[in-house]
């Protein structure tokens, strides 16, 4: 059983809030599987509308066929900006993508994009909804030090330790 973004957010609000924040910076990386079974990645901006998570893929991109053939995806957010409280927050969701063909859902996404001052979907873009099977987060216990104007992680002999959390839709 898979969850929509909204169902995930209702079940794990803190994870979802930080996840939303990190997925909302300009790019995230979407992984799909090519016909020959090799991995493919592409940087893109995830879309949120009506408590659902979407990606738009250009009509010319071979990735649209990846997801049509095998909907399994993995989406990874970029880390946050360096700061005094930097924890290298990693956010990853996995699940299945489904092609959206109805005009109403497309209009919903366009409305949400307009509300964030972003342009509408390109007319030949393929829209996929990402249903969520699992969300994984990792944070690192960095010791941050200020060097000039920059906060940087201090690399000690042991290195930082990760704390991982996994949320599963069917748990």
């Amino acid at each position: 059983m898979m969850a929509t973004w909204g169902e995930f957010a209702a079940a794990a609000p803190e994870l979802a809030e930080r996840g939303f924040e990190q997925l909302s910076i300009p790019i995230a990386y979407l992984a799909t599987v090519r016909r020959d079974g090799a991995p493919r990645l592409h940087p893109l901006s995830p879309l949120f509308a009506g408590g659902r998570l979407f990606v738009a893929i250009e009509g010319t991109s071979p990735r649209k066929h990846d997801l049509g053939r095998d909907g399994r995806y993995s989406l990874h957010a970029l880390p946050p900006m360096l700061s005094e409280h930097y924890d290298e927050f990693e956010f990853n969701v996995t699940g299945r993508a489904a092609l959206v063909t109805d005009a109403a859902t497309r209009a919903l996404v366009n409305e949400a994009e307009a509300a964030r001052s972003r342009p509408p979907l390109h007319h030949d873009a393929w829209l996929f909804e990402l249903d969520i099977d699992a969300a994984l987060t990792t944070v690192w216990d960095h010791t941050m030090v200020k060097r000039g104007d920059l906060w940087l992680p201090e690399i000690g002999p042991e290195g930082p330790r990760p704390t991982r959390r996994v949320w599963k839709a069917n748990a």
Partner: protein
Amino acid sequence: MATWAEFAAAAPELAELGLKQLRKFGLGYLGTTRRDGSPRVNPVCPFIAEGRLFVFTAPTSPKRLDLKRDGRYVLHLLPGKEEEEFLVRGRAMLVTDAATREVAAAAGREAVGLNVRPDEWLFEYDIEEAATTVWENFGQPDIRPVRRAWREGSPSSVCAH
């Protein structure tokens, strides 16, 4: 399969953009295939040592088992200010000889401040293909991508659309 140096000799413009992005961020996103055939993506710290591309991987990271089983990878470096993109794909191979490991650990420390522990796995990333995208008229309405691609055994090609 080509090493980084062989790729750079065959397609110097592409490699130059890759090096620039690598030096700037020291961070890339690695795509691998899991046992069940689904995709995985993780951030990694790639670096170059003696003309070869390497990544150290934590001994708890599931992607190391992906690569051991099926070495096919794709690696995207973080895009630049004007969204320049660089990617390589090919096969990753586990490195077990101590001399290479030592050289790589020293280079990783120098390049990206890595502090390599003895239990980390080292993979060398051989390159079959590389591709770049840079944008003409970036930030303008008439923005247009210029894509370049190199594949082992063929000359560097440009395709713009």
